[in-house]
């Protein structure tokens, strides 16, 4: 964690303006809720186009990630994030932003160890702990099914 503390600090600053809870929380609620409504619209759009629920959800994620990458590249996402805090962090667009933003910032340090490596500064830990948690669940689930004779 030590190496990335500075970069984290940069993100903390961007995602959490130092104002009072009564201001930051409603902003996070409204903007985060708004992003989710966009997601719901996309879900319905893809369902309308004839995709089943699973594929509609997948294309919704891909679309939101694309939009987030675009807005991050245009420097608009971070501008919104200054006001939205967790509202732009918690949705999957925030995950995409955490990939795109360091990729852009560290491009100057090279395409492999700059762009390529720094891309995972935040997404890396998310994947490490998310996947590990899912594997632990999978093993527990397997043991339960064995005992149940499944």
């Amino acid at each position: 964690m030590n190496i990335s503390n500075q970069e984290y600090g940069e993100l903390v600053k961007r995602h959490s303006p130092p104002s009072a809870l009564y201001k930051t929380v409603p902003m996070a609620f409204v903007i985060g809720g708004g992003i989710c409504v966009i997601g719901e619209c996309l879900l319905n759009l893809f369902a309308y186009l004839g995709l089943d629920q699973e594929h509609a959800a997948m294309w919704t994620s891909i679309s939101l990630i694309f939009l987030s990458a675009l807005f991050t590249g245009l420097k608009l996402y971070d501008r919104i994030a200054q006001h939205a805090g967790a509202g732009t962090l918690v949705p999957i667009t925030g995950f995409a932003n955490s990939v795109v933003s360091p990729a852009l910032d560290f491009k100057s340090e090279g395409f492999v160890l700059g762009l390529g490596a720094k891309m995972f500064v935040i997404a890396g830990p998310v994947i490490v702990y998310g996947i590990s948690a899912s594997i632990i669940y999978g093993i527990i689930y397997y043991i339960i099914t064995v005992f149940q004779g499944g």
Partner: protein
Amino acid sequence: MEYVWAFLIGGLLCAIGQVLIDLTKLTPARILTSYVVAGVVLGALGLYQPLIDLAGGGATVPLTGFGSLLAKGVREAVDENGIVGAFMGGFTNAAAGIAAAIFFGLLAALIFKSGSKINES
């Protein structure tokens, strides 16, 4: 009505994140990680699916939804393949999201100019 629920539940999940940031000074990286792991746990316990049924995008768009997707993938893979499924299902279901973030991240980094943000702040 589904849009109202999507807004309320999605907004609520983000508001909780904001309270955590303001009160505990958790870094965004830790918030994201906690949300995904929390989603795996809630998905594993079967508590997240009702929220998805109620709020749709309000539950699937936040990263807890991503976590519950990992749990669902693992469950289906174990049902199909046995114990090795525990090592397959997570990435199977996360594949589209992670691949999209990597690919569009690369494209955006190649197309757009970097750096102005750090200089601004």
